[in-house]
């Protein structure tokens, strides 16, 4: 195997997206997402793809719908306030069950906030995509390589389930350089232009692509929406069986468990290694899919064996923490280590929290 190359997260992800068959990007510059927009501006041109600098995130995300209806693998990326503007289209993508990939390079704070890494958009995309309560697959990678792995398969999943796929990156992962293997180009076949939500190349039988599924076996819109959203929900439930992704780290003999995702989780790995040197048996469960959340490994934590759980998260107030808490045996003490607004999780503080749990040593 050739030596891995050092790439910045944003750029490695963009190149991998292109190789996964992405041929459409619309975006609106916002730090720390801008390097993605700049990279794809020249790179998509080289492969006869479409790049559009949109007039706003509203428009950028709306353009994804059109590209998806044309059968093209489409991507947008944003951060902070841009995500607020995109929620309208997220709702439409989920409701129209149109495949597309959206990347949020999370930054600190609400409103304008700041430009550092954060995890505060977790609820906004795992609970529902925009208004209306629908879902998409959501991933929270923690290394540049994992970011690439996820986006490489993102459209395959998006098309398989007819869903938007959402990737929660963050400012530090986007700007960080790490060694990666850039993957080979995927070959897509022409059959994609016959997919049910695609209006074909030259001409076609009449197709009506609605972002609200009014059509169905019943006479009223309400009955049909009820019917269709029930079917959507069956898909979401199936994801809980088939699309759960997580990592277990040093869990075999663990008495204390750190639970975190993305950047907070990888930072916690350093703390775990330091604590292990001190003889404290700490492990980690790291969800990679955030929706569906890996519930089973959390449910399986045994109060007879596990003396404490620490959720490490870059969000204040806590968001992910409550999802974890809901899945954990009530007899296991659980605490949160929180930072926000672009303040990354700190190794020494995580160590301290676990030490306190272990008896204040």
């Amino acid at each position: 195997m050739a030596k891995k190359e050092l790439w910045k997260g944003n750029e490695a992800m963009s190149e991998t997206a292109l190789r996964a068959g992405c041929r459409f990007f619309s975006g609106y510059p916002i730090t720390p997402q801008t390097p993605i927009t700049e990279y794809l501006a020249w790179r998509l041109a080289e492969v006869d793809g479409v790049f559009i600098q949109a007039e706003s995130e509203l428009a950028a995300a709306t353009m994804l719908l059109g590209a998806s209806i044309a059968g093209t693998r489409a991507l947008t990326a944003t951060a902070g306030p841009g995500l607020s503007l995109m929620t309208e289209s997220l709702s439409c993508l989920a409701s129209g069950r149109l495949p597309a990939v959206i990347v949020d390079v999370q930054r600190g704070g609400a409103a304008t906030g700041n430009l550092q890494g954060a995890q505060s958009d977790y609820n906004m995309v795992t609970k529902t995509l925009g208004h209306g309560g629908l879902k998409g697959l959501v991933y929270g990678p923690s290394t540049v390589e994992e970011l690439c792995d996820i986006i490489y398969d993102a459209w395959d999943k998006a098309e398989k389930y007819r869903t938007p796929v959402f990737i929660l990156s963050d400012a530090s992962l986007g700007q960080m350089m790490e060694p990666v293997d850039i993957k080979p180009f995927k070959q897509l076949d022409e059959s994609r232009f016959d997919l049910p939500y695609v209006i074909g190349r030259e001409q076609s039988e009449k197709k009506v692509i609605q972002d609200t599924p009014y059509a169905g076996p019943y006479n009223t819109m309400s009955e049909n929406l009820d019917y269709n959203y029930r079917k959507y929900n069956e898909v979401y439930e199936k994801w809980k069986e088939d699309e759960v992704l997580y990592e277990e780290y040093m869990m075999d003999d663990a008495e204390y468990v750190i639970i975190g995702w993305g950047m907070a989780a990888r930072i916690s790995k350093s703390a775990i290694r330091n604590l292990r040197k001190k003889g404290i048996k700490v492990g980690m469960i790291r969800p990679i899919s955030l929706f569906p959340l890996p519930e089973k490994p959390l449910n399986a934590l045994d109060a007879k064996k596990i003396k404490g759980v620490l959720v490490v998260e870059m969000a204040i107030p806590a968001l992910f923490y409550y999802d974890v808490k809901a899945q954990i045996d009530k007899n296991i003490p659980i605490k949160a280590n929180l930072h926000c607004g672009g303040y990354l999780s700190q190794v020494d503080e995580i160590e301290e929290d676990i030490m306190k749990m272990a008896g204040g040593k």
Partner: protein
Amino acid sequence: MDVVYKRSGALSDVSTTYCPGCSHGTAFKLIAEISEELDIVNKLVFATPIGCTTFSAPFHKFSTFMSAHGRAPANATGFKRCNPKRPVIVYQGDGDCAAIGTGESIHAAARGEAFTVVMANNQVYGMTGGQMAPTTLTGQKTTTTPNGRSVEVTGYPIRMAEQIAQLEAPRFVTRQSLHTPKNILQAKAAIKKALELQINEGAYSFVELLCACPTNWGIDPSGIKEYIEKNVIPYFPLGDLKG
């Protein structure tokens, strides 16, 4: 016997559900006839946003995609860039095009996207029941301007075609009306020209149509012609603004 008039084959057998005197049905009829004349019934894609046209798909035979309120030009941009061989009509209300979707409208026009925008200017929000639109005339009563639109409070109505005509990229910008048979024929010629420019030269065009909404204007459909001539055309003059 010669056939001098028939229902367009590009319309479906379902009759429209629009109010008496509404112009949307007339506009669809024109588009249907043009699509047959240009032999693009299976090719034309109809992009509808939110407004009284939201539920128009059953009335015609064109492939259709829906968009959120105001966003059809952005949605159509994504579609047309990826699918350049399909002719696209973006059919918007005035509220859609010139209020909530102003940004998308102006920027799609500025980029010269290869589609044709038809804006139905009925001076009200039809679908939601007759509130003020960006085109509502000064003094006009709507449910949100119960004493008549006042310029002190709400400013002046927007002439969208003039806004679009200022931009470099649009090839053909015109305002037409659907209130007399003669105007209907002129409107048809304008839409046809816009579509031909799109198909042959990849050009963006904008056709504003003065439409009637007697239900929300609170007038009898028989009074439409007089109302439009007396109130609407003086503020929204007809004719080509560009190309």
